Structure formats: C-alpha cells, structure tokens
C-alpha cells in the first residue's frame, strides 16, 4: 500500500525528472538515516535503560547484577543530587530570563531603520558562533580578580566572581547570557519583522500609547516565536556542562550534568549514572511538554 502511494506521487516532481523514484529515495536516504538513528540513538537509549536497573560498572569485568529500582531510589533520596537539581533550576531561570530580556530588548532596538543595521546584527551574532570551551576560557580571564578587565572597568577592586560561592553561578549565567542572547535576538527579530505594519498605523491613528502598543500588538504577535526560543534555550540551559565546568569548580555551580559526568566517567558507576540520565531526560521531557502546550495555546490566540 505504502509503495503504491509512493510510486504514484507527482511525476512532475524534481526527483521524478531526475529519474529517481520515491523508492530509490527511500532506500538511498531515509532508510540509512533511520538505521543510523536506531543504531546510534535508539539502541543505546534502550540499552542504557536496562543498565539503569543494574549495578553495572564499565570499569570492572564483574557481571552486572539486577538491582531493580535501587539506583532510582537512592538517587532520589540523595540530598547532593537534589541540591544539583536546585542549582540547575536556578541556573536555567537566571540564564533564560536574562537571555530573553537582553535578546528581545536588542531585537526591539534593531527593529527600526538605523544605519549599518545588517553589519550590526552580524556582529551581535558573533558570541554564539564561538566554541563553548573558548568562551569559558576567556571569560575566566575577564573575571580574574587580579588582572581581569571586568573588575577594572567596573571599578570593583578584587571582587571574586568565580571563587565566591554565592556569585559563581551568576557569573556562569552572565557568560551564558552574553553568549546566547543573540540567538533569542535573532528569532525575536524574525518575529518582529513579521508583525504587519498596518497594525501599528491603526494603533497610531487611535492614539494608542507605546506601552499599550507593545503589550497589545508587538508581544502577542511575537510570542509564539519567542516561546520557541525559550524552549530551545531552556533545554540547552538544563543540560549545560562546558561553561560551568570550565569557569569554576564551586559546588554551588555543580549543575546536574556535571554530577552525571563525574558519576559516569570518574566514579564509573555506570548503572547508577544511567538511572540519573533517565531522571534528567524525564524532567526535560516534562518541562518541554509544558512549554509546547503553552506554545499551542499562544498560537491559538
């Protein structure tokens, strides 16, 4: 049946003109992709689910023993793990809120006729094109209390950004905001430029204030695309690793992925780390689902 549908597709299509049937396309492109996904994504995913119920250690030749829900039970009862989750949540909130405010603000500024707008936009996009590790290393220098340019410029003396346990997480979040606000800006800019001009004209005729125009016209129309940016950034911030790992080793910045890395590759508790990875996966799925539901609601409006 499926084959019949595929072969009767539009004979004027480009692939048909090239002499490639839909079947050939399926065999050539789709099947290898699916096989690749199954072998490298789905299979390890299911395999690791199995491991999460065992005491398997990749560093030991000893056979894995089935331990049931013990890994999950112990992880969810571990106060250190909960503190890692709390740190991650705090980081996600600070970082994503910061990126939305900065990114959307810059997009609003750029969404008007200004000279060199193209060049300015391109320059503003540079941070997100850099590698995380590089950004981490040079922000470490910028934050340095003895010779860092940030303290020098702001006149903060030898303020300790990364060594101060209360400040370190914010310092990492500021770096993340610097790096990823351009992403929110780019998407917001696309949304802003799609808002029909006549709506603003009508508002101007009705003598609507700029505050009213922003909350009644701009924000509702940009909201769906802004939500997409927020979903992406939340998922990324939730699994952040590089920046926090490179910038500081404060326990107050030990986000869940750093704990997971240590558990899996320093302690070699493979079974338990699989269980933790699943807990993280379920949390990300749940958060994303809430967002997507909200996104659909926003779209319906």
């Amino acid at each position, binding site marked *: 049946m499926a084959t019949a549908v595929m072969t009767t597709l539009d004979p004027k299509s480009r692939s048909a003109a090239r002499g490639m049937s839909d079947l050939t396309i399926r065999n050539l492109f789709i099947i290898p992709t699916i096989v690749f996904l199954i072998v490298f994504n789905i299979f390890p995913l299911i395999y690791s689910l199995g491991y999460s119920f065992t005491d398997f250690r990749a560093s030991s030749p000893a056979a894995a023993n089935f331990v049931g829900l013990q890994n999950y039970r112990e992880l969810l009862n571990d106060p250190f793990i909960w503190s890692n989750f709390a740190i991650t949540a705090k980081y996600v909130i600070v970082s994503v809120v910061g990126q939305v405010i900065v990114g959307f603000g810059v997009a609003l500024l750029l969404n008007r006729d200004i000279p060199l707008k193209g060049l300015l936009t391109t320059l503003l996009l540079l941070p997100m094109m850099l590698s995380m590790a590089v950004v981490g290393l040079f922000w470490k220098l910028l934050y340095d209390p*003895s010779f860092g340019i940030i303290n020098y410029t702001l006149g903060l003396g030898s303020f300790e950004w990364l*060594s101060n346990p209360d400040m370190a997480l914010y310092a990492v979040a500021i770096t993340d905001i610097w790096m990823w606000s351009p992403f929110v800006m780019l998407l917001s800019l696309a949304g802003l430029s799609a808002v029909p001009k006549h709506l603003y004209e009508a508002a101007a005729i009705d003598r609507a204030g700029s505050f009213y125009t922003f909350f009644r016209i701009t924000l509702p129309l940009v909201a769906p695309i802004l939500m997409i940016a927020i979903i992406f950034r939340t998922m990324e911030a939730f699994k952040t690793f590089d920046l926090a790992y490179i910038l500081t080793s*404060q*326990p107050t910045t030990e986000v869940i992925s750093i704990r997971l890395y240590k558990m899996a590759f320093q302690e*070699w508790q493979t079974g338990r780390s699989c269980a933790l990875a699943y807990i993280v996966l379920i949390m990300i799925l749940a958060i994303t689902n809430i967002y997507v539901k909200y996104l659909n609601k926003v779209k319906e409006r």
Partner: protein
Amino acid sequence: MRKTMTSMLAGIGLVLACGTSVYAQDKELTIFWAEWDPANYLQELVNLYEAESGVKVTVETTPWSDFQTKAFTEFNAKGSAYDMVVGDSQWIGAASEAGHYVDLTDFFNKHNLKEVMAPATVKYYAEYPSNSGKYWSIPAEGDAVGWSYRKDWFEDPKEMEAFKAKYGYDLGVPKDWKQLRDIAEFFHRPDEKRYGVAIYTDNSYDALVMGVENAIFSFGGELGDYATYKVDGIINSEQNVKALEAYKELYSFTPPGWAKAFFIEDNQAITENLAAMSMNYFAFFPALINEASNPNAKVTGFFANPPGPNGDQFAALGGQGISVISYSQNQEEAMKFLEWFIKDETQKKWAELGGYTASAKVLESPEFQNATPYNKAFYETMFKVKDFWATPEYAELLIQMNQRVYPYITGNQGTAKEVLDALAADWNATFKKYNRVK
C-alpha cells in the same frame, strides 16, 4: 588472462611481504601520561632507547583534568592504543582488580626492584593490595608535595625585624605548621597586592585533597585503616579536625580568587610576586629555577612540608609508576623497554633530564642531591610520604571528600568536626556498598 592473474597475485604477495617486513622493523610503543614537563623529559629519555634498539617510543599526553577519564575509557574498552601507562598511584587498585594492568610480580622479583627502588615508591606505586607482594607497576616518577618560598622577602632585614617584633622568633623557613601559619599571616597584605601563601584548592580531581592530606598527615592523622577499611574515629579524629582547621586558616591568607588553584596557579603565585610561600609538587619545581619561566628564579627557595604540632612530618604522595596494559599487542616489546628503563644508567639519565627517579641508589647519591636547590628536600620527603586510598572505588571516595571539605574550606560551611563526621559516614556507606566492611 591466467598470466595476468598470476602476476597480480605475485604483486599482492610482494606488497604483503614488504609490508610485513617493514612492520617488523618499525615496532612502536606508545606510553600514555598526563601533559606536564616530566612527560617531555620522558620523551627525551625514550628517544635514547630508540637510538639503541630501533624501537620507536612515543609519549602521548592529555591534560591532567581528563587523564584519568581518558585512560580508564581506553582500558574499559579494552583498547590497544597504548602499550604502557604512567598511571596515578591511586589507580592501582581499580586497574589491577579489573585486569587492565599486566601482573609484574615476576619481573619485580627477578630484578629485585623492592630493593632497587625507594621503599615508599614500591609501597604506593607498585604493590596492591597492601603488603600482598603483588606488583603492578615500576616506580617511574617519584613525587610529593613540597614548598617554594621567596627568599628575598624572607631575608629582607626590615621584614625580619618586624616579624621578630610581632611573633618573638626569627623569620626563616617554617619549622612547623604553626610557623607556616604565622609567616603566611605576616606576609598577607592585600593592600600591597602581596599575599601570604598559595595552597591547592581545586576540587575537580585530587588537588584539594592532596593539600589537605599534607596537614592531616603532619598533624599525626590518617585517612583510615587501609587494611580493614575502618574510618570512623580515624578520618574524624581530633588531629584531623585540627589539621582541617589549620588548612582552612591558610586559605584566608591566599591571593583573591584562589578557589580553583592547582599546580599552574601555585607556581604563578611565585613567578607573579603574589605569595610568600607556595605549595606544589616537586615535579613542578624545575620551572621555578629556570629564569625563562620564573623572573624570581634566583630568589626562590624550597623546603619540605613542615612537621605538625606533635613533630610528625609527612607529605602527600604524588608520582606514578609505569604499567603495561593488558590489551597491548606489544607486551613483549614493552617488557624489554622496562628492562632498559630500570637500568642504573637509564635512571641516572632520567634524573639528569629532570625526571624524579625512584631509584634509591640515584636518590642517595650526592650528585643527585646537589644537582638542584630542591633535590635534597625531595630526597628527604620521599621517605616521609603517605597516600590516598588505592581501592578500586577511590574515585568515589575522592569525590565525597571534595564534596564535604571544599565548601568548608572555601565557603565557610559547617565546622571541621561536622565535615569530617559526615565524610566518615559517606566513606563507611561506600565501603559497605562494595562489601569491604559489614
């Protein structure tokens, strides 16, 4: 057609034959180690082996921060990328029990290495389990924690006078931890951008723990009973509480932003005129007497970790032994290399190049002890060293210690007693989990 086939086959055969013979001549060995100066010295040393035997030896390195992860990932995958590894002393339990290292007991006994190498290096780098007579590596790079200091600051007459007036004794190389603390306090002048002391605080691997161990061992404490796995009353003993408090106090005399410091930062404290004294492994001292890397080379002095309040004097052990990896396809060749490596001439050359030989004969020679300003302190220290747990679950123990101790030292959380009691409970739970204790 037949003729073509025959000639083709002959051609393939010839290529294969040439390939095999080329392969036989070009035997290669790869040694895996961390990225630091001693690895460069080792590369220079093994170049001599290539000149002698024709076997090319490459020392492959990776940064310290992922040395352990990379090595064990390769071991766990039973990979043959490396033939030998200069592995950290605390890996020996994990690597030997999992079958990653070749048993070198026969080799050890045949060459009487127990006598040839310094006793502490045999105990901590080679033997596992403790006192079992089973050996898994050849002590290669002896190392321990020592101290460097600014001789010009110490010998400044004005400073000496002010110090004596304040503390009632002469300013000089600290004779115990109390003096170490006083001197750190004395030189700690944030207004002048001069600070008292540089210590290890990085908690991503073993830096902070090694630093704390220097205090614990010299205060007469222990981490636990390595034979029975008993920790309660040992890790949280009265001495250890005092030692941890002393280490925390030293942290208050460090330069600003000193919460992730390891060997690079601690050497910088001397080269950048930041601190009066700096803790570091002896392996990093060659850079401090080199004027190209230390503008203060001429005025930098060295001393061994001072004794604690009861006169006990110990230091945290660093250093590594060289082991043959079970999955190597060149084990025979690797053993030949080790036979060359343990020769007296090779060990002497190794020391000359900058490597810290573990050979007792070389260490004891006046030639070695006078070669650098710190060799004598190194020789003395190597007979007073203690190490962290070497059990297969050492990484969990290390992370637990970091988790408990780091917030106390750098973030003022809890008291030393609370921290060590909690650590004793963590370690007990871990040993129970692996059935070490009931």
